């Protein structure tokens, strides 16, 4: 249960429901595997897939790990959300939530209720990047989430992505 208090504290800090849901999902998967004692045998990678695969968790690539490391510096200040909204971006996952998710999770996005992220994801306009006090390459984080398995558009779904033109952001920060 200690882990869950951590998640709740995180929620109190970030106020992001979506991030909370994502975190609780991984947490449940982890605790469940611990209880069922399914992580004792086999080679490490096979063990990993056997234990966590069914819950959509998978090992991160080197690029993802780098982005995760960068994302851990997030102050949850929300400036990227404001810059994104101002630029007219409408990503399925708010840039702040994307960074929170990338900092902590490595999961199959179908399991996180984020199927279709690739289709309705951000326009990669990078209006969010220059406002980040921590210099996190946020649009790359978005891109890497959208490239994960399970983020492909569901069959027949309309493309709801709203490309935010680079020049739509006007003068200002950055």
């Amino acid at each position, binding site marked *: 249960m200690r882990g869950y208090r951590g998640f709740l504290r995180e929620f109190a800090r*970030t*106020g*992001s*429901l979506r991030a909370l849901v994502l975190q609780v999902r991984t947490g449940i998967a982890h605790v469940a595997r611990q209880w069922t004692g399914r992580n004792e045998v086999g080679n490490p990678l096979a063990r990993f897939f056997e234990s966590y695969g069914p819950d959509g968790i998978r090992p991160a690539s080197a690029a993802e790990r780098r982005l995760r490391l960068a994302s851990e510096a997030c*102050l*949850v*200040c*929300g*400036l990227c*959300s*404001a*810059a*994104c*909204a*101002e630029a*007219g971006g409408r990503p399925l996952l*708010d840039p*702040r939530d994307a960074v929170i998710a990338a900092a902590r999770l490595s999961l199959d996005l179908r399991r996180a209720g984020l199927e279709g992220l690739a289709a309705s994801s951000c326009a990669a306009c990078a209006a969010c990047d*220059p*406002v*980040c*006090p*921590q*210099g996190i390459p946020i649009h790359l984080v978005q891109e890497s989430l959208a490239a994960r398995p399970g983020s492909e558009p569901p069959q027949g779904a309309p493309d709801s992505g709203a490309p935010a033109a680079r020049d739509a952001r006007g*003068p*200002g*920060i*950055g």
Partner: protein
Amino acid sequence: MSGALVIGGGLAGSAAALVLAEAGVPVRRLAAGPGATALTGGSIDVAAASPGVPHLPWRDPRSGEALPSRARLRILLSGASRHPYTTTFGAAGGEALAAAFERATERLAGWLRAEGIDLHGSLDRNLLLPSAQGTLRISDLALTGVASSDLGGCRKVTIVDVPGVEGWDARGCARTLASEIAALGLGPLPVEVVRARDDRFASGAGSPARIAARLDGAEGEGLLKAALEGLGGADELVLLPQVLGLVRTRALLASVSQGRPVGEALSFPPFALAGYRLTRALDRACAAAGVELLRGRAGRVLAAEGRLRVEPEQPGAFEALEPEGLVLATGRFVGGGLEAGPRGVHEPLLGLPVSDPDGRRVDGIPAHRSVRKGYANPQPLYAAGVSVDGALRPQPTAPAGVWAAGEWIGGFDPARERTGLGVALLTGIAAGERAARHVLGSNDSGQAPRGPA
């Protein structure tokens, strides 16, 4: 490069750059990012009252009479000896400091007005500003949006409940606000929660930033008007989360107010938009005044043969700059003017000593070793920074032609003493003026300086 360079894109750096540009000095402003200024919640604290600091009360403990910031400025000068107010105005006294602030706030108001933000308040009256958590902040100056939620002279507070807005719990806010009002003896001042009749303005948007962007748009104004229909009345405040636009706040407020005060609650990251608006407005004001805005992180400042040289942190990120005058307004740990790392706490650009408010060196020591136990204890690191002399020159040794501004200067804790943006404004303007005199003086023999665009 001739002319001046300002490093820092917060209030201190922007104010210095604007002063330099208005004095006719060619000026560039280099910033790695937006800094702590972009995280602020809507008040410009010159000498706000602080519950954590008994010697900065909002009213006289004996007579019960309200104490305005003008009085708190005098108290600050008589106490904290390393506070930048004391360093710069200790000899001149409280009245001179207050007068300097009156000039400074007039300039800031002028810069912001043109960009759609007004600065409200004065040093002679406390503003009572409710936060999104329901606590009351007693300050002196506030920006469009938050300023109109001042409880002074207000007869009733209506908190608008908008389901689904992140970070906005109208009921929790009302409960805390009612007890704060009772504790401060402000009553009778009823607080009620009313569900917005029409919440289309917020539906499905979630984060305050997205709602604000929607309200900036063409239909936004109509949606907000519909939502606030029938709420509040004369002297009856309608309190909202920070959603009143990212750029059109003043126009939106004017159109939806209709004879009653409508205001935003002071907020904290990630739900605060006031600091974002402030930073954007300062950027636009700088650009309009002819300041050249550069992005990038400086790595170090060198001085050889009387020339200053600013090199990028990443080699090749920008060409090394050689300004005649340099204002450093790099902030602290959020801005990047101070760093804590394997080398302990340090100041990266000049390698200057960093001291706590008692004057003890904290640089070279791992950050955790300087932390005091207990939440309520003052934290030395929250008040740490470089030292300056009365003319804002970094001490003990900095090359000629360098001035310091803002939070980078140590000796005060912006969260406890609540003078954060006040120090940034006062020292930013003063450092800009000194740098301008220096550059214009050293230019006397050379070409005439370029005027602001």
